[in-house]
Each structure stands twice: as C-alpha cells, then as structure tokens.
C-alpha cells in the first residue's frame, strides 16, 4: 500500500499543513498584535484607559473565541468563498483559520503586554516618551520572550485547527487522515499522518522555546 502516490500525497499534505499554519499564523499576528495592543492599553490599568473601546473589543474577542472552530469554519463558508473563490482546499482554509486565530492571538499578546512592569512604563513616561513609542520601544520589546512563547503556542493550536478542517475538505494532513483513515479504514495512513502532526508541533515547540530562552536577558 506504500505506493509512491501515497508518499507523494503525504509530502504534499505536509506542505499544505505548513502553508495553512504559517500563513494563518502570519495573518493572525498581523491583526492579533494591534488587537492585543489595544486591549492592553485601553484596559483600566493600561496606558490610555478607555472603558468603551475595551468593552467592545473584549466582547467581540470573546464571541469569536466561544464558537467551536468546526462551526466557525462552516459559518464562514460564504466569506471564504467571497475572498478566495472556493470554500475547500488549503488556501480557502486559511480564511477561517485566520479569523479563529486573531482573537486567540490578541488575547495572548494582551496578556504578554500586561506583564510589563508598571514602573518601567512610568519611567518611560517620565522621560517624555510618547505612548506610541512606549508601546513599540518598551512594551513589545520587554515582552519579546513572552510573545515568542505565544507564537509557539499559537502555531501548535493553529496546526491542530488546520487538521480539524480536514473533515470538511480543508486539505493538508488532517484531510488525509480523515479520508484514508476514517472513510477507507486505512489505519496505517492515519497513524502516519498523526505521527507527522505530532512531530511538526514538537519541532516548532522546541525551536520556538529555544529561541525564546536564548533571547532572554533576564537570566545570566
């Protein structure tokens, strides 16, 4: 059963999974960082507290996060179709993956930024530094280790979501696992895909955490 076709299919599956995860992570951070920054700065204890902005964003973030990913995937089919032209395959899956990732990443960025010592921010204010620069030069820099840890967590989570999209023809390793392992009872192929998924998460987790630890200047 290990024909070259199967091997090729699995290699292609790895490629698709990586493509979905990487692009969704990228787009997720593109929108998630501003969301996290606004959530953190408009918080009661933030740099520029604004109850209304915080409440609205907090509410939307919670709503999107409460919808199970599989349901979100189906709910977003019209949006996906409008943006990509079709609702199946790995490129189309990037749309719901990104939308699921943004609030999740936003929350992680928010909690990272909230770790910044209030005293350090006060010191920056006493130097006459603008709020924008306090965000970009103090908060985002001081928390880079925590942010990096967040990236590895986000990557693993999005990879897991991308596999879930396999049940509705989302492409990638999850798709192969569902089609061969579930519909055709080819357990061996399913096990191979699952092992590959585990390996991918492990590799990214290890590399990410190592980079995070390497760049941390607090220990030494």
């Amino acid at each position: 059963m290990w024909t070259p076709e199967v091997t090729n299919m699995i290699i292609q599956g790895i490629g698709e999974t990586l493509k979905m995860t990487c692009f969704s992570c990228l787009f997720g951070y593109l929108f998630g960082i501003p969301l996290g920054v606004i959530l953190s700065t408009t918080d009661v204890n933030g740099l520029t507290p604004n109850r209304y902005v915080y409440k609205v964003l907090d509410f939307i973030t919670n709503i999107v996060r409460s919808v199970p990913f599989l349901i979100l995937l189906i709910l977003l089919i019209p949006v996906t179709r409008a943006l990509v032209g079709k609702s199946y395959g790995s490129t189309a899956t990037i749309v719901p993956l990104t939308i699921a990732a943004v609030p999740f990443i936003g929350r992680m960025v928010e909690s990272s930024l909230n770790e910044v010592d209030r005293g350090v921010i006060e010191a920056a204010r006493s130097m006459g530094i603008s709020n924008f620069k306090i965000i970009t030069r103090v908060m985002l820099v001081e928390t880079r280790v925590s942010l990096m840890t967040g990236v590895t967590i986000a990557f693993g989570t999005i990879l897991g979501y991308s596999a879930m999209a396999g049940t509705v023809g989302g492409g990638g390793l999850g798709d192969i696992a569902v089609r061969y392992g579930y519909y055709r009872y080819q357990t061996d192929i399913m096990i191979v895909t699952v092992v590959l998924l585990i390996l991918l998460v492990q590799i990214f987790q290890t590399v990410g955490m190592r980079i995070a630890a390497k760049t941390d200047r607090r220990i030494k």
Partner: protein
Amino acid sequence: MGTIVEFKEVTKIFSSAYGTTKALDNVNLKIEEGDIYGVIGMSGAGKSTLIRCINLLEKPTSGQVITDGEDLTKLSEKQLRAKRKHIGMIFQHFNLLMQKNVVDNVAFPLTASGVPKKEARAKAAELLEVVGLKEKMKSYPASLSGGQMQRVAIARALAQDPKILLCDEATSALDPETTASILNLLQKINREYNITIIIITHAMSVVRRVCKHVAILSDGQIVETGLVSDVFDNPQTDEARILISKAEQSERRTKGE
C-alpha cells in the same frame, strides 16, 4: 538663583469605586534652583503623589505646578512631553529595561526621541563614567546589584541633560552602605552639574545626610518647611514632632540599638 519648582494650592483627589482620597491637600511649596530638597513623610502621606505632580505623571485636581518657569497644568500633551525631558526621575525599584544592556538603557531616552544610536551610545558611555560603571556597559541589568542598577538609572535620568532630578524613594531598597554611596553620587551631580535634586523618602537619615531644605508632609498637607537642621532639631508643629520621633524610633530599631 530663582525658584525652579513651585506648587500653588495643589490638591489631588483620587476617586475610586470605594470612595475618594485626598492625597494632596492645598499644598504650597517653593524649591530653589540648585537645592537638594527633601520631602519626608510616613507612608500614605502623599509623598509619591507630590513628586509625580512635579513632572505631571499625576495631574493635580486643582492648583498650579510651576516647573522651570512654566505652569505644567496648562501645557498640551506634546509640550508636556518636551518639558519632561528636562526633568529626570529615578525610582525605588530602578525600573530599568531588563532586555537591554546597560549602555542601551542609558541611551534609551535619547534613541527613543530620535537621537542617532551612535551619538546616544557615546553620551551614555560618558554618563556611565560619571556614575562609575563604565566597565559594566555591556552587562544586562539582571546581573547587577541594586546599587549598580540605581547608578544606571541615575545615568539614564541624566541622559537628556535635566535641570531637575526627582528621586522617588531611590535608596529605600538599598542597604545603608549602598545608600551612602548613592547619596554621595547625588551630591556630586548636584554640585558639578548644578541640577536641583528633589528627594522623597521616609528615612530621616537620608534627608539629614544630603538635603539642605526639607518639607514635612502629613496627611497630604505640608506641615513644616525650612532648613534641615532647623526643622529636625527644633520642630514647630505637633505633626512634625510626631513624625520625627517615629522616624527616629524606627531608625534606631533598624540599627539594632
């Protein structure tokens, strides 16, 4: 030499869900240029609020804060930021950037306001020489002692050539010997750069050692001001007498007498 900081009827009220607190109650204060001025009071007396009103990190509820000839309460956010560059500040917990090395910490106020990195680092290196930490330039704050961290913070506060240096319980986290060396450094800075230094503290020994004038703050009110020797040796008000005796007691206790 003229007045560099003046408080005119400054009141600061904090309101929260639990009620309101009057942190400063109609405070009038004049600090002369070139002075080392101490503000002493028990915890909760409003010292932190008072020092934060000098650079408007806290905005007074009413009253005027005239710093270096300008009423800060009337300035726009942008003008205020420009003004703050001339008012350095150091803190009890140093508040250094833990992910930047010593020289970049000192250069930070400059690079953040657009000074080229090379120029900022050169200035930072000079300042580190002044505070006696040139050999630690490439170290990270986590590897420094408390006294060394405060020296870095002082160098950082001097980066933008301030006229005033605010010290918020700057020696309260340090042991007596380190405290003495930091106070010596502050005196040197006051002398050599003619920077007015304002120290808030709960420790009488700090005020006695370096300050020329002192104000006693009690429950948000200035109860007494004057030369350190006059106020401490011959207090005129009950509040001042109570504070001085309490402070003396606690200082005797920490010395183990």
